[in-house]
């Protein structure tokens, strides 16, 4: 069983700095580009973390669904056209967990099309220099592939059992006074760059062994990039050439939870991705955590 990305889109912030708007615009473009009828999208999983006004209820996915006009009122319209929405969090590997979750829903017959969205903005919805992530929205539409040898074939996830998580993102709500809707702290350890790279490398090696995947067969690596040269170093350490790593750092900076979709979208638009190509998704994040997914185009 597998799931395939049938469409993807990226929506970087220009004037709008709303996590809801960015994800919704990316989501609608993604569906429009796919040719799939909007009403057939049965599930929406939002993987963004940092959000407008630090809203934690309802799920941001519900507000994005409304903004998109995606089957918002089936009871009063058509009960056959329905969508279920929720948020899923796990740093930059959230997309891989969401893809696996979509795999579960699609291959258990509970959804035909699952839309995964992402977006992170500073809760003030303003550009704040201390906030480390770019304001970007992204979306990917997943479905069952015609050929089960294509799409996501294997997933592997690793969580560190000890040590610092590498970085924290939190709202110290009782220290902010009346500014709780506008404040967030993201603090990185000094050694996060090296530790996260080592952790990603070990996850890829364990993945290769556990799933019997020859990394030399991989054509492209789509990965997190908390800093500029992360991808080149990762590709080199796992035995691939620097050019195998898809680098969107110069284009987007670090769009955090949108990184993996944005990398895929960039590769797709480049025209270099051919049917049958093996693509390795590698996400890392706070925990430390790493996720690896093998995708066949």
């Amino acid at each position, binding site marked *: 069983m597998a799931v395939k990305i049938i469409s993807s889109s990226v929506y970087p912030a220009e004037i709008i700095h709303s996590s809801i708007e960015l994800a919704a615009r990316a989501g609608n473009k993604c569906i429009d580009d796919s040719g799939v009828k909007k009403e057939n999208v049965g599930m929406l999983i939002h993987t963004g973390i940092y959000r407008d006004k630090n809203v934690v209820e309802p799920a941001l996915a519900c507000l994005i669904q409304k903004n998109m006009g995606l089957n918002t009122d089936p009871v009063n319209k058509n009960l056959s056209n329905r969508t279920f929405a929720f948020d899923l969090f796990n740093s930059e590997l959230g997309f891989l967990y969401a893809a696996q979750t979509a795999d579960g829903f699609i291959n258990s017959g509970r959804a035909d099309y699952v839309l995964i969205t992402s977006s992170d903005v500073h809760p003030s919805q303003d550009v704040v220099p201390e906030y480390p992530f770019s304001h970007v929205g992204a979306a990917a539409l997943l479905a069952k592939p015609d050929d089960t040898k294509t799409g996501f074939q294997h997933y592997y996830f690793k969580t560190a059992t000890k040590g610092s998580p590498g970085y924290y993102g939190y709202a110290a*709500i009782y220290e902010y006074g009346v500014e709780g809707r506008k404040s967030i702290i993201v603090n990185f350890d000094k050694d996060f760059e090296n530790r996260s790279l080592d952790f990603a490398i070990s996850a890829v090696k364990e993945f290769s062994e556990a799933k019997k995947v020859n990394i030399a067969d991989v054509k492209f690596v789509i990965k997190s990039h908390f800093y500029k040269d992360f991808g080149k170093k990762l590709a080199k350490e796992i035995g691939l050439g620097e050019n195998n790593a898809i680098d969107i750092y110069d284009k987007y900076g670090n769009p955090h939870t949108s990184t993996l979709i944005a990398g895929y979208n960039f590769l797709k638009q480049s025209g270099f991705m051919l049917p049958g190509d093996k693509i390795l998704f590698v996400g890392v994040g706070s925990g430390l955590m790493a996720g690896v997914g093998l995708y066949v185009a």
Partner: protein
Amino acid sequence: MKKNRFESIGVYTPSNVVSTQELIGKMKVAPLFDLEKLTGIKNRRYRSKDEDSFSIALAAAKDCLKRSSYKASDIDIVIYTSITKFINGFKYVFEPSFSSYLRNEIAAVNAMNFDIMNACAGMLTGAYILDSMMKAGLVKNGMVISGECITPIADTAIREISEPIDEQFASLTVGDAAAAFIMDHSPDNEEGIDFIEFITLAEYSHFCFGMPSAKHEGVAMYTKAIELHSVGIKSLPVLVGDLFKKYKISTVDFDYAIPHQTSMRAIQTGMKTCSEYFNPLPEILYVIQDFGNTASTSHFVVLYKHLKEKKLKKNARVMLLSQASGIVMGFLGMTIKSLEV
């Protein structure tokens, strides 16, 4: 496809009991209505100063593991599902995921982990995800955990309500609680989950918001209670009718119904709107009198307490009905055989 079941459940409720009268007594402006009479809530539990979402979630997870046939190292996936994610007092943690802390603390060393959020439908959304992943063969079992340290919204409501009608009144109904369950494959394909259905009526997603207060430090919940109730009342019979048709079920297929524990009167009104389908009504199970609305954990607190007091008949058939901000409406039908507390 093979059925899955709740193999074990665990619950933790703080020992500190706070009555509705006590809460009302702290308010500057008393509500125009009798909150206790309207909701049926006499008491709820409040966290102690040393407790937060993490500590109570951990207690529930340990309670669940204690009566499970699985060791923590047997668990394939840990999904954390609460609205509140307070750790070290009132630090609301977005990253790392709570599930990574809990996975490590209970030593589920072979488990994948992620967090989800879906307001008060969190734990049942976790059940839906896990059931689907197991049906698709991605995992063999899993654990869903939630620790709701939700009473800070009641504290804010007490401090901020200054008019007899206010969007924060619903915040006075909540109570703190944590719950956890382990799901595995049904041993006989009779015991376990018969169906799960979820839908999001996103048109009404703006009827309830949880976020930091703009008036004081702290978190608040703003609910358009009448509008929310109205959509629920209108939608419930339509969705129940659709569910009964799809799964070819009727009221005789259920011994008990466990609705989300919002208010006794709202629940009764809601169930009566479905009288065309639930006729006669299955026995409705509550713990709202003693625990209030414990957010995403509410169905499992009800189930736990009734199992513990041996109040469920043998081979009980139970429907869990979820209604949450979003607006999320969900239904889970199951047969209970070996699940015990």
